[in-house]
């Protein structure tokens, strides 16, 4: 790969200094305290409706400014998912409106039915306890299969049968006919091949960003300002406008540094309610911060899912056909809807489709009275890949095949184009997965460890496992992909970079800075990025999700940077008409075509600002509308110790090796991989929101009971890469942010299978489930 000047360097993060000094300002740090506080009253039934609410005692609590109920708020619904909106010409693509600010229809335990505004949180909480609510209670359904049978009162009236969506992608009859089949089932059941069927399940993982969801709102004139911890400030502006029924231009959203999002903050949660409460108290500043407990059930976690899978395969180790049928429990609200499980079943197909003659990817998204769900890092893909890898692991184990060799024979290859995506936009333009696997196998000492651990007996055993992954980059062609960047030349020759794309901890600001420096031809230190987004001044961008920003917003940076570079050179040429063209900008100097120095960049910048004859403020504003997509791949290898009587799995060594295209900043990509691995280890072994099916109440809504890995639960994490130069990325780059949370969990599952011969299908593999499995197999 061609060496670039700024792209590819392990530059230190532009935000590191402010963050280690405690100077970096997060939402609550900026809040002008003391201000009014708001808290929400949550329903104590799992399904039904509010008949009446008596707030008279609550209003008498000293310090209370106002009590507002579901009978006071506007009676219209709005959509909350962090997806692009569409004009009337494409109205069918819009998200469904399924949320009200407060709602008398209680769809889940803890639904929002009233709110208190008071002078402090103590008064809020005292008032909340004095609100008397009369409910009409209906039976709770948490099992999506039960829910699909129909309920007397649909969870959402807009979906009378509780089905959000059903999709099915089948190999075409023409393609099936080429192989002598009429249906996909014929290919699955062809007696010339082996047949296997499994059922997998994945629990609800919670994002557990350490900063809670918090906002404060105040009015400036008739405009409502909302400062919020969000991944998607521009979308938030639109949704607040829709929820309050006011022009979107009357809403200003400011996004400071945010303390992690991982998808929670790709939904709009309480910010519209807070904006409305602010309106009700005359525009005074109102702060609304969720408690840690509320975050577990009143913001959106990963959808719990189950999958039924079938496959046929030959003695030549080649997959012949596969089928996946997935059911996703979206809970009481649609939010991100069907896109999540669609990602599960699609990536199941992409990862090992190379030799298949037939495939079925079918999915249902179902409303229940469970906690509402939404986006979480990798957006349905970890569940689909978990399922694909359970299948691969089982087939290899049952046939005594090497799991790595079996996967390599069947995995995605460079040039793969998904036949079901319109226009073939989802494609593996580059793919170094085999090289990644070779690197990982060498580091984990695959062959040696396989032999070493082969014949262990006794209660404590060891194993090594592997899993591969695929992940697409951004959301084209399924949804709009657009981003805008603005670069402005300063008087000293440095540049301001303004992005609508958001820094959420992933390092976006640093890599945008590198890309801008590369495109303009200046140094990293010459670019000043504005980290906070303010929808009144920041260019439009949908925000941080779908591992899209370096690819989509990065393209806008490159475009704007190249345009500014051209403008600088054109202006320099106007200043020095005799200088032989074309001019060049490098090392803070303008050079002519002969290589002679013409002037300094700083001088050109000063002239641009202050030339009395023809000054011209040099800036560029560029939008990138992206229609391509590209698949990132990689793998994880894990070495584990399994203590069967204790149901304890210790990950001894673990490595992820990834093809993320060209790495814009290798140290920052490594950071992302470490973090994803940590979250995936948690998903594999301990993290699950537990729901009481009778009431739909969450049982473990604290950090003591919901088990996030601690410093002592993760081993040293090894990240490595085999780069490729993707032709569609602005600098050869592909998706990064979400990719590393996919393959570690199934690699651990594969290592447990290697260690014990026991097949686990339900993630997380908690001690309880492990002990049950080992007992079932007679090992303990």
């Amino acid at each position, binding site marked *: 790969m061609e060496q670039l000047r700024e792209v590819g360097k392990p530059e*230190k*993060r532009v*935000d*590191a*200094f*402010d*963050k*280690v*000094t*405690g*100077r*970096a*300002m*997060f939402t*609550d*740090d900026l809040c002008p*305290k*003391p201000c009014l506080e708001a808290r929400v009253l949550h329903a104590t039934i799992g399904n039904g409706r509010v008949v009446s609410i008596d707030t008279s005692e609550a209003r008498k609590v000293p310090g209370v400014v106002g009590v507002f109920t579901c009978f006071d708020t506007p009676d219209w619904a709005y959509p909350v998912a962090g997806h692009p909106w569409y004009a009337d010409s494409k109205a069918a693509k819009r998200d469904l409106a399924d949320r009200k600010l407060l709602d008398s229809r209680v769809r889940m335990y803890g639904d929002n039915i009233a709110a208190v505004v008071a002078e402090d949180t*103590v008064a809020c909480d005292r008032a909340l306890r004095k609100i008397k609510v009369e409910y009409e209670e209906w039976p709770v359904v948490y099992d999506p299969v039960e829910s699909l049978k129909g309920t007397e009162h649909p969870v959402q009236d807009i979906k009378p049968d509780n089905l959000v969506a059903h999709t099915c992608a089948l190999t075409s009859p023409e393609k099936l006919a080429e192989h002598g089949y009429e249906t996909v089932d014929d290919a699955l059941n062809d007696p010339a091949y082996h047949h296997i069927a499994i059922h997998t399940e994945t629990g609800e993982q919670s*994002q*557990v*960003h*350490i*900063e*809670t969801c918090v906002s404060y709102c105040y009015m400036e004139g008739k405009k409502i300002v909302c400062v919020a911890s969000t991944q998607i400030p521009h979308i938030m502006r639109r949704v607040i406008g829709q929820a309050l029924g006011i022009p979107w231009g009357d809403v200003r959203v400011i996004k400071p*540094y*945010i*303390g*992690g999002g*991982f998808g929670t903050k790709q939904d709009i949660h309480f910010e519209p309610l807070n904006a409305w409460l602010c309106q009700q108290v005359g525009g005074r500043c109102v702060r609304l*911060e969720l*408690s*840690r407990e509320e975050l577990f059930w009143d913001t959106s976690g990963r959808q719990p899912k189950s999958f039924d899978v079938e496959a046929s395969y030959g003695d030549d180790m080649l997959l012949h056909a596969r089928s996946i049928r997935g059911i996703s429990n979206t809970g009481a609200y649609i939010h991100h809807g069907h896109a999540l499980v669609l990602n599960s079943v699609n990536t199941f197909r992409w990862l090992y489709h190379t030799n298949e003659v037939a495939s079925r990817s079918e999915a249902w998204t179902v409303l229940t009275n469970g906690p509402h769900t939404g986006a979480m890092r990798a957006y349905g893909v970890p569940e689909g890949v978990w399922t694909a890898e359970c299948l691969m692991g089982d087939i290899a184990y049952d046939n005594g095949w090497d799991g790595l060799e079996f996967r390599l024979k069947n995995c995605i290859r460079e040039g793969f184009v998904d036949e079901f995506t319109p226009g073939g936009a989802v494609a593996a333009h580059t793919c170094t997965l085999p090289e990644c696997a070779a690197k990982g196998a060498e580091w984990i000492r695959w062959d040696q460890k396989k032999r070493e651990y082969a014949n262990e007996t006794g209660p404590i055993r060891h194993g090594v496992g592997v899993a591969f992954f695929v992940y697409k980059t951004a959301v084209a062609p399924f949804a709009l992909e657009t981003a805008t960047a603005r670069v402005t030349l300063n008087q000293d020759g440095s540049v301001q970079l303004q992005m609508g794309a958001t820094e*959420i*901890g*992933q*390092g976006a600001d640093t890599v945008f800075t590198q890309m801008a420096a590369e495109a303009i031809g200046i140094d990293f230190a010459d670019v000043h990025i504005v980290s906070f987004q303010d929808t009144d001044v920041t260019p439009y961008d949908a925000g941080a999700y779908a591992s899209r920003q370096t690819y989509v917003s990065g393209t806008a940076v490159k475009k704007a940077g190249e345009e500014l570079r051209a403008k600088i050179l054109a202006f320099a040429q106007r200043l020095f008409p005799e200088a032989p063209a074309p001019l060049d900008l490098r090392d803070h100097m303008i050079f002519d075509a002969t290589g002679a120095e013409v002037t300094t960049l700083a001088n050109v910048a000063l002239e641009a600002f202050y030339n009395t004859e023809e000054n011209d403020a040099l800036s560029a504003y560029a939008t990138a509308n992206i229609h391509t997509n590209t698949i990132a791949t990689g793998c994880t290898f894990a070495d584990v110790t399994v203590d069967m009587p204790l149901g304890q799995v210790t990950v001894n060594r673990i490595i992820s090796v990834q093809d993320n295209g060209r790495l814009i900043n290798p*140290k*920052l990509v*490594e*950071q992302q991989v*470490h*973090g*994803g*691995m*940590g*979250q995936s*280890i948690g998903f594999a072994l301990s993290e699950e929101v537990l729901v009481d099916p009778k009431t739909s109440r969450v049982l473990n809504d*604290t*950090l*003591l009971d919901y088990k*996030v890995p*601690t*410093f*002592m639960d*993760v081993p*040293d*994490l090894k990240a490595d890469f085999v780069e490729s130069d993707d032709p569609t990325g602005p600098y050869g780059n592909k998706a990064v942010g979400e990719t590393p949370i996919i393959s570690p969990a199934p690699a651990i599952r594969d290592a447990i299978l290697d260690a014990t011969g026991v097949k686990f299908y339900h993630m997380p593999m908690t001690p309880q489930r492990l002990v049950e499995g080992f007992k079932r197999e007679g090992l303990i």
Partner: protein
Amino acid sequence: MRILKCTINGKPVQVGYDPRESLLDTLRNRLHLTSVKRGCEVGECGACTVLIDGVATDSCLYLTDWAQGTTILTCEGLQAADGSLNPVQQAFVDDFAVQCGFCIPGIIMSAVEIVGTGKTYTRDELRKMLSGHLCRCTGYQNIVGAVEDVVEEINGTGACSEEARAAFAAVAQKARLVAEE
């Protein structure tokens, strides 16, 4: 309202507080020391960690009322007078230990306490000493690396600049950290 008298980041402080108030709220809301973060309010996440008389403490679980006469150090008190970073902070920058940064000031305070013991530790020992903190971005990898590096730099046998050692000693004095014999 009562008056809290204590020393914060090397300066004597007097501030009014509600006797029901946590030290976290007093530091954040009355003194604007916003490096002290609220993550859970029940001592689970460690984001609100400050040093009280040299001991890393969850300020969300510590009543302001108990802080009379104490010496408190927050992340705002770590930079040297000339603005240079404390060696602990510098290690977090150099080792790419920072992502979203919300948990970082709290972890840095625990790291200051660890360095202040004057001893060196294995990675496993460091993991145990830091396990009162949750971080969701980093998988802990580079944080453990940064703390290991700065502990080795200040307390280990390797070369350490006099400036770094002096910078740390100044903070240790400010925090009333006492190295164990």
